[in-house]
């Protein structure tokens, strides 16, 4: 895996792409060449000395040709709302690439992507990496309300895409995991298929059940509170499904993850 570094790039653009959702673009050739899908960066919120920790964001997209990097974020709290107000030329202080990223089985014949809300963030780059390996993709992408969809045109052009909304404003009315179940039920053979999932906790718990049930291997990109993002604070602990009691009971999301085999971790909260 590539070395992590501190960078101070300038913001190229912050663009609103959906309800409360923004795309932040900056130029950073090293990151753009070395970051892998599922990895993340930590951003220090500029102009806000009162916000202590960096904030973790998945690498959404990179363009190694021109050196650009994109993150997609939801303005939910103090840090992300401040990021939404940045403009071209503002300097951001970032650390990355961090974390392990998704992995790919050599035998992989089909990938099933399951995104809930902003869980879609790492899937743009995941799509690219899977495409490079020639792996066909089916993607289930669910949000509460259609104004939260991001990049639907892109995904529609590159993967077999099924949308869902909780309020039924677009696509299937209901939760995205229903689509996954329906799909898995329809498959004759789950060999050499793998699920990739990212989204809110209740959805992850449901996917964990589903993956056990069928069974089908699934990788989850997990989010926990993080103080550092690179293994120094030991704060981002996530319980292991198979702990060594009294010895090792937790993984670190930032270092052992954020991508885990979904059967290895206890999904709480």
């Amino acid at each position, binding site marked *: 895996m590539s070395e*992590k570094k501190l960078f101070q790039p300038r913001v190229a653009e912050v663009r609103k792409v959906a309800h409360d959702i923004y795309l932040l673009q900056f130029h950073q050739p090293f990151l753009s060449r070395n970051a892998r899908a599922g990895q993340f960066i930590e951003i220090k919120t500029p102009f806000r000395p009162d916000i202590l*920790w960096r904030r973790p964001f998945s690498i959404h997209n990179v363009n190694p040709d021109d050196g650009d990097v994109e993150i997609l974020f939801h303005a939910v709290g103090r840090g992300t709302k401040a990021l939404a107000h940045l403009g071209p030329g503002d300097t951001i202080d970032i650390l990355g690439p961090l974390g392990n990223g998704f992995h790919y089985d050599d035998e992989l014949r089909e990938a099933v992507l399951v995104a809930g809300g902003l869980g879609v963030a790492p899937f743009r780059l995941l799509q690219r990496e899977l495409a490079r390996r020639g792996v066909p993709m089916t993607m289930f992408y669910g949000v509460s309300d259609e104004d939260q969809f991001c990049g639907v045109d892109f995904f529609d052009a590159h993967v077999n895409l099924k949308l869902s909304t909780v309020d039924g404003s677009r696509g299937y009315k209901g939760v995205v995991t229903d689509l996954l179940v329906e799909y898995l039920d329809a498959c004759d053979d789950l060999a050499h298929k793998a699920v990739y999932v990212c989204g809110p906790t209740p959805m992850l718990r449901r996917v964990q059940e589903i993956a056990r049930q069928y069974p089908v291997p699934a990788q989850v990109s997990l989010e926990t509170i993080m103080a550092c993002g690179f293994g*120094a604070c030991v*704060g981002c602990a996530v319980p292991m499904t198979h702990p060594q009691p*009294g010895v090792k009971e937790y993984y670190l999301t930032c270092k052992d993850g954020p991508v885990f085999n979904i059967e290895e971790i206890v999904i709480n909260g």
Partner: protein
Amino acid sequence: MVDLCVQIGPLRLKNPVMTASGTFGYAEEFKDIVDLNEIGGIVTKTVTPNPRPGNPPRRIVELPGGMLNSIGLPNVGLENFIREKMPFLQTLRTEVVINVAGTTEDGFAECVSRLEDVDGISAYELNFSCPNVNHGTSYSTDPNIAERITAAVRRLTRRPLIAKLTPNVTSISEIGLAVQNGGADAVSAINTVVGMAVDIAARKPKLATITGGYSGPAVKPIALAKVYELARNLSIPVIAIGGIATAEDALEFMIAGATAFQVGTANFYQPDATIKIKKGLESYCKEHNISRVIELVGALP
């Protein structure tokens, strides 16, 4: 050229910038980001005789100007530490301080005794601020126990011995004097301040352990008062810890009486903080025509 050398009892540091235990991992986590050999001294995360998994999540809370943690001293245990972590530390050309703790009184001596066989260790730091022992009497707050443990370890080693003190006591200098009596070469202070945060939506504590340790810039004024008190009352050097994130912070502590200092929480959000602080210290000295940084120590009128 400014002479940044400081002397912590028998331990000579090329500069007074150290890392605080539990905030710099085993140094390897930072090797991509900082030139580790530029740091005056590296203190490793607390090691205990046996492995510890640490506390259940949620372990950390961000606060304005600080954070809470209840990590629970997770570590691979003494033997695995020596096998897995020491080899990298032995490659460093800086002083490596191993922070140890026992969950019993004997645990400290057990660690040090075993580590005496290991090369590449410049000093020990005894972490007197962790879970309770002896039926509720804590060795972090009882001067007699602290002195006893220090004396027991002192008998085992000629390596420099630093006793790390908790601020959560009525009189930190009482504990400081006790460990000085017990044979410590220096004290370091402060460990974290007991703190708490409540989630008002869920109506429950934010940390799984309810209370935790408060650290970061917000504790700096408290740490300064404790370091000043120790420096006035003890004859051994004081290593300052608590909210140091900039050279200005470090200077406050040196002027208040600290001979060296450790950077903690700042490493998380500014992983190159140690190097920046070292450079800032050098600039301040140059600007103020100070040729040796130790001239600053305890420079209060």
